[in-house]
């Protein structure tokens, strides 16, 4: 955000300057007086020309004493209707300006009630009548303050239109940027702290949030330029505390990222952090002492941050550590630079005097870069965490799906086993049926035939019954599906032939819809046996003319009815009593209901079998259970 803004403003300024350069041919260039005359005097009016003026180089600084500076410049012949101005890159404590002996401007100064520290540059316009052709004399009063050296900047004098962009450029960097930084640092820092508050194990977010907030507070001191003097010391202490805290938190952040333990060191660092503000307050605001010694002590810590992050970058070679160590290098270099400027170190004065004169402090911007990088790293971590989470979810889903497959295959196996088991049960049932029915009948006949007790006709009849029973068993067992209707079709075909051969008129009704009727072979066999018994009775005993056989499917209930118009149950015991009992026993065994009613004329046998709740697919077990 900030770099973009910066780039925009630079582009804008460049464009403006280019435009101005076109016009510049017409008018004079701004002048940079490099020397001034100085008189130390607390007077509110400029000293007379006869005072003891001393020539000094600009920029200049005095300590604890009010100074009057006299700057001479040549307006040349350019005294047109053009507006001129004086540009002061800084005049921290305010002051007064006089041109050619008449008051030009008064910039608010520190008083008993207010502490003033103007970070902004000043652009003072010169009304056209005040400007003389040829030499002009500008007097500037720089008031004395108790807290720091009082600086007289390298000023510029020239056409207003030329100085305005220079002024605006500096205003942007020393005025707008800090405001911007304060706002974004506080918002981002509080967000990070919120994350840390909800997830205390995310220590990095905590360090980053705290560092960001501290940096915002520190920068606030550059935004607030006018302060009640009662709050001044507290304000400066806050500034030093925020600066120190920021550097120390950076160290902890770097150690945390590099995976270095800091449990013990933490307290030492905390102590050192407190030392600065406390020393400042106890010495009654000894700015230069705190800046030189305590803030100087922060520099090794800054170097430690740099070394640790560089080592981590070297060892881990991750994007995160490399980026951070790069940004920190910038930060530390900027901090060193600012320290040198603030203390007006001879080294930097010798190297770049112009730069010292500008008094541009870089740590703001470097710290902004560091914070942006830290924020970027944490965002990347956050995104990484989200992606890991998504990956984890995918993995989990896959595992769940796999588990589901295993489960369903296990279930399928279980069902298969169950079915095999059920099939085994079915087979046993059928074998029992064969044993009890066909087997016992054959053995009975064998013994009677061996004893010579059986008539040929009776023997034929008995054997035909055996064959009929065997057919029935086969019919119940052979269908490929468990569809009762298939077995019923075979049964009907066979019995119709037999009934018609005996001269009976038979009607068959089928009311089962088009659907198959799923039944186990055992249940099928038992039901068919009951019906067969009933039909046999009709054939043998009823002397009937007609017989009606009805099969109906109502819901899940299968009902079969056999009704004849014969002589009825004249004597149930004499008339096939054994057969009726057999039918009842079979029905009971199967779990079916049977009704045998004498209807005068004829007999009606009705059997109803409930197929149970769930037999959409064949479930022999259910029927077996019902039969048991």
């Amino acid at each position, binding site marked *: 955000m900030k770099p973009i803004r910066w780039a925009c403003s630079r582009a804008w300024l460049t464009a403006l300057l280019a435009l101005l350069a076109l016009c510049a041919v017409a008018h004079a260039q701004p002048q940079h007086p490099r020397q001034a005359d100085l008189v130390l005097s607390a007077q509110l009016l400029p000293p007379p020309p006869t005072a003891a003026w001393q020539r000094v180089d600009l920029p200049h600084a005095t300590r604890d004493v009010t100074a009057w500076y006299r700057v001479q410049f040549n307006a040349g012949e350019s005294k047109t209707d053009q507006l001129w101005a004086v540009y002061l890159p800084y005049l921290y404590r305010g002051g007064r300006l006089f041109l050619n002996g008449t008051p030009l401007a008064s910039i608010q100064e520190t008083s008993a009630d207010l502490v003033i520290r103007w970070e902004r540059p000043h652009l003072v316009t010169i009304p056209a009548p005040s400007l003389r052709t040829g030499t002009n004399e500008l007097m500037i009063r720089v008031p004395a303050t108790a807290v720091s050296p009082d600086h007289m900047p390298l000023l510029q004098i020239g056409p207003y239109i030329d100085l305005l962009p220079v002024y605006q450029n500096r205003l942007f960097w020393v005025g707008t940027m800090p405001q911007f930084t304060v706002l974004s640092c506080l918002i981002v820092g509080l967000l990070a702290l919120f994350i840390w508050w909800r997830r205390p194990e995310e220590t990095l977010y905590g360090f980053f949030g705290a560092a960001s907030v501290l940096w915002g507070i520190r920068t606030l001191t550059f935004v607030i330029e006018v302060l009640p003097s009662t709050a001044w010391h507290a304000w400066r202490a806050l500034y030093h505390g925020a600066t120190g805290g920021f550097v120390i938190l950076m160290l902890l952040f770097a150690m945390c990222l590099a995976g270095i333990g800091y449990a013990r060191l933490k307290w030492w660092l905390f102590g050192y952090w407190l030392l600065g503000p406390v020393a400042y307050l106890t010495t009654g605001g000894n700015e230069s002492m705190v800046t030189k010694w305590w803030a100087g002590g922060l520099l090794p810590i800054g170097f430690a941050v740099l070394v640790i992050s560089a080592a981590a970058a070297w060892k881990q070679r991750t994007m995160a550590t490399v980026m951070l160590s790069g940004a920190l290098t910038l930060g530390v270099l900027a901090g060193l630079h600012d320290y040198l400027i603030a203390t007006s170190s001879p080294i930097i004065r010798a190297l770049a005097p112009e730069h010292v004169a500008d008094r541009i402090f870089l740590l703001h911007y470097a710290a902004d870069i560091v914070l942006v990088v830290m924020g970027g790293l944490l965002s990347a971590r956050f995104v990484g965490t989200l992606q890991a989470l998504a990956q984890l979810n995918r993995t989990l889903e896959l595992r769940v799906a796999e588990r589901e497959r295993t489960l369903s295959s296990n279930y399928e196996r279980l069902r298969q086993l169950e079915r095999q088991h059920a099939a085994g049960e079915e087979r046993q049932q059928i074998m029992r049926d064969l044993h009890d029915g066909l087997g016992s009948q054959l053995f009975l006949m064998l013994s009677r035939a061996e004893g010579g007790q059986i008539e040929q006709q009776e023997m034929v009849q008995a054997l*035909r019954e055996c*064959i009929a029973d065997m*057919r029935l068993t*086969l019919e119940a067992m*052979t269908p490929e599906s468990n569809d009762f*209707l*298939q077995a*019923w*079709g*075979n*049964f*009907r*075909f066979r019995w*119709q*032939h037999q009934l018609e051969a005996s001269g009976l008129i038979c009607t*068959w009704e*089928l009311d089962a819809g088009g659907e198959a009727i799923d039944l186990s072979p055992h249940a099928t066999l038992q039901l068919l046996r009951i019906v067969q018994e009933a039909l046999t009775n009709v054939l043998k005993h009823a002397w009937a003319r007609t017989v009606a056989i009805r099969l109906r499917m109502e819901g899940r209930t299968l009902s079969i009815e056999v009704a004849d118009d014969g002589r009825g149950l004249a004597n149930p015991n004499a008339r096939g009593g054994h057969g009726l009992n057999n039918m009842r026993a079979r029905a009971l065994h199967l779990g079916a209901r049977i009704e045998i009613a004498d209807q005068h004329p004829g007999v009606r046998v009705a059997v109803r079998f409930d197929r149970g709740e769930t037999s959409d697919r064949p479930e022999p077990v259910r029927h077996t259970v019902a039969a048991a």
Partner: protein
Amino acid sequence: MTVSVLVVEDEPGFLQRFCDAIAAEPVLRLCGAGTTVVGACALLDTLSPDVVLVDLGLPDGNGVDVIRHAMAGGAKRDVLVVTMFGDDGNVIESIRAGATGYLLKDAMPKDIAGSILQVHAGGSPISPAIARRVLQSFRVDRTTAVEATVPSMETSARPSVLTERETQILRLVAKGLNFKEVGAILAISPNTVITHVKRIYQKLAVHSRGEAVYEANQMGLL
């Protein structure tokens, strides 16, 4: 005009039973009896009977071979296969080989003669189980031949194989309805139903002959 019948049965009791039933019917004339595949084939060549009764379980082979021999060269004769229950897979095999009827082993003497006469008169008996197997057989043939089991093909069976009417008849028979009932439902005479069934049998036989030729070609026998 009598109908000459050849009986192929290895079990003396049943052979006697069939011979007695035929002798009792004046229209039928027993022209011979065989007990082996080889013997039956020789008798077929010399006697050329109108109707052949074949039991499948012969000591020297399968009765199906006898049926094939009997029907070889598009002979105009009928073959009835003797079966225990009228629903086993052998019946379908026999029909494929050219049989146009079946006879239950425990059939009453008058039923035996009746069946022979019915088949000779152009009709064929059919049980629900056989009807189902025939339906199934055509369905299986179709799916293997067409290679695609598109459900819509199910209803539109190859018209050249089974007609809509024939399919209807088979479905009704499979439910256990007799010819009279089937005829009533389809509004045709029972005799027409019988004729249809015989045609179905012949189709199955022709179809399986074509299939056999195809298979033999595939195997390099022809």
